[in-house]
């Protein structure tokens, strides 16, 4: 009998430490058949499991334009993420997915795109950034604004450097005041302040924002001030989930389930929901 909760097996091919507590796993399906069958879009998420510890929900942090591996990034905060951290290259984990909707990458063609992320919120945004960069010609100006609490908390540093070196991408990296090191050359300030300062143009533009709730709360008014339309500000929610399939009820907000109606929502969609995200 088919089983919607049965995980596929994936092998850890590479481990990349992003910060002291955040790690990226590069994963590959154990079975060739599973690999062939699998496809996803930027913004979708999955359930990752360590047998004996449980499952947890992360977005797929790699883009659908790079299908040799799937990457996920996680912060060590709970039972399962602690267990995931104990694993080594060659170990196996369980994987179910992809679930949920995705960022409207096709609708973003021919537009200016502004990516704004805070902390580990860069993970889902990275999937779209890499997706868009792999198809660079189809999009107009690209701006990336990324901030973390401190220099040590910045994730995907190698890619940030890469993006900063690209002539056709504007990348602004910032750390919260007090989070800088003596040799820090980037911006210093909270993400909303830096967004206001960087003032990305809102004409023909779509913005993708992800970060801690407090960052989003203060960035939204700035975006409105810059002239972004509510339907062109897109974010992704991370409510607690157990099944990912619209069954367990954990991620219910108002009349939507984040796992099946989301996780990607525009600000105009979010505005009518109870503020429980």
């Amino acid at each position, binding site marked *: *009998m*088919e*089983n*919607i*909760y*049965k*995980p596929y*097996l994936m092998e850890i091919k590479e481990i990349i430490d992003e910060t002291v507590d955040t790690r990226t796993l590069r994963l590959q399906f154990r079975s060739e058949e599973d690999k062939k069958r699998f496809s996803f879009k930027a913004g979708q998420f999955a359930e990752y*499991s360590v*047998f*004996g*510890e*449980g*499952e*947890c929900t992360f977005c797929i942090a790699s883009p659908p334009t790079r299908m040799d591996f799937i990457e996920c990034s996680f*912060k060590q*905060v*709970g039972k399962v*993420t602690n267990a995931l951290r104990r694993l080594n290259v060659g170990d*196996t984990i*369980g994987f179910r997915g992809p679930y949920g909707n995705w960022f409207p990458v096709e609708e973003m063609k021919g537009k200016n795109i502004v990516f704004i992320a805070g902390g580990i919120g860069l993970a889902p945004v990275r999937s779209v950034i890499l997706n868009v960069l792999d198809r660079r010609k189809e999009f107009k100006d690209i701006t990336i604004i990324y901030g973390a609490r401190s220099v040590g908390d910045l994730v995907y540093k190698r890619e940030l450097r890469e993006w900063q070196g690209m002539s056709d991408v504007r990348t602004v990296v910032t750390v919260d005041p007090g989070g800088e090191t003596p040799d820090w050359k980037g911006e210093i300030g909270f993400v909303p302040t830096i967004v206001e300062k960087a003032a990305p143009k809102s004409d023909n533009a779509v913005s993708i924002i992800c970060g*801690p*709730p407090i960052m989003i709360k203060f960035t939204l008014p700035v975006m409105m001030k810059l002239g972004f339309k509510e339907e062109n500000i897109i974010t992704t929610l*991370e*409510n*607690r989930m*157990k*099944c990912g*399939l*619209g*069954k*367990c*009820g*954990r991620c*219910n*907000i*108002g*009349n939507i389930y984040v796992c*099946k109606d989301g996780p990607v929502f525009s600000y105009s969609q979010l505005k009518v929901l*109870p503020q*429980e*995200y």
Partner: protein
Amino acid sequence: MQGFLLTKENIKGLVSELMKSYRVVAPVKKETRFDFCEIEKFEDIRMDYDTTILPPKKHLSPPVETLLKFKRSENKAEPVFDNTPVALFGLHPCDIKAIRHLDQAFSENNNYDRHYLAKREKSLIIGLECQPYDYCFCSSVGSTFAKDGFDIMLTPAGDSYFAEAGSKKGEEILKSIQAKPAQESDAKKAEQFRAEKEKKIVRKFNKVNASTVKELMEKTWDHKHWKELEERCLACGSCNLVCPTCFCFDVQDDVSLNLNDGERKRLWDGCMLVDFAKVAGGENFREHRSQRIRHRINRKMNYLYDRFNSPTCVGCGRCVRACTVKIDPVEIVNELSK
């Protein structure tokens, strides 16, 4: 569909017929209350029960259910299904409607939960028309009578029962026990029993009904009553546990003492519990009891309305009885509509 008239003796025959091929679950006395339990003999059944401590849900979606079995050394997981045929006997219309909701929840969006559905497909539902008791309020949420969702429905008609089949399976069973066809007068007696039931329902929403309660909930999101309820609610989750339409669940892994064999289990969960919406990073999206009780009542009356075409609350009243501080959906709705 043709009705039958079942004497008490016929009911006994029906139950023993069922016991041949099903695990028969029926209302039995448990100390001072009733509960749906597997019966050993017909005499265990209490046709006169008011309501049960827990809804019949537990026999289709048990409090703890194994989804997968795995061996950590082999990193392999295999699903586990329990599809022992079960006959649920004596369900009141509210509980029948609740099971319809569960059927939908576990099969919608093309995501079929075989753990539930495998059991459900092999199950049989024999309904029993009821009389209102101290806590229920079915007429306000549109679940007074069951039009479908049963295989057989029994309605008291004098000393006997008027039986209707709601499915092919039900019809076959009724024929197999050689029940005699009902007369028009028997059907009338059953009709009268239902009419009296309806008259006896006193606990009701004052100003809204099953189709308008949703609008009321939408308008009263910021009502001060939610805060008032916070002062009373203990956030114990009893209402979640006894609710026939609470189908939210948690998933946990359990490893045996040999540290190799393990099971992934589904457990009943409750949105009234403090960590229900808490994420690993520490953020709690419904930190306050007022938010959680508002969420629960909205889920029953509003949030899922469009999906289920009805409130998901079936008005069984179990939550009111289970609540230590007697928080009552009828009182809440009436307060909000004042």
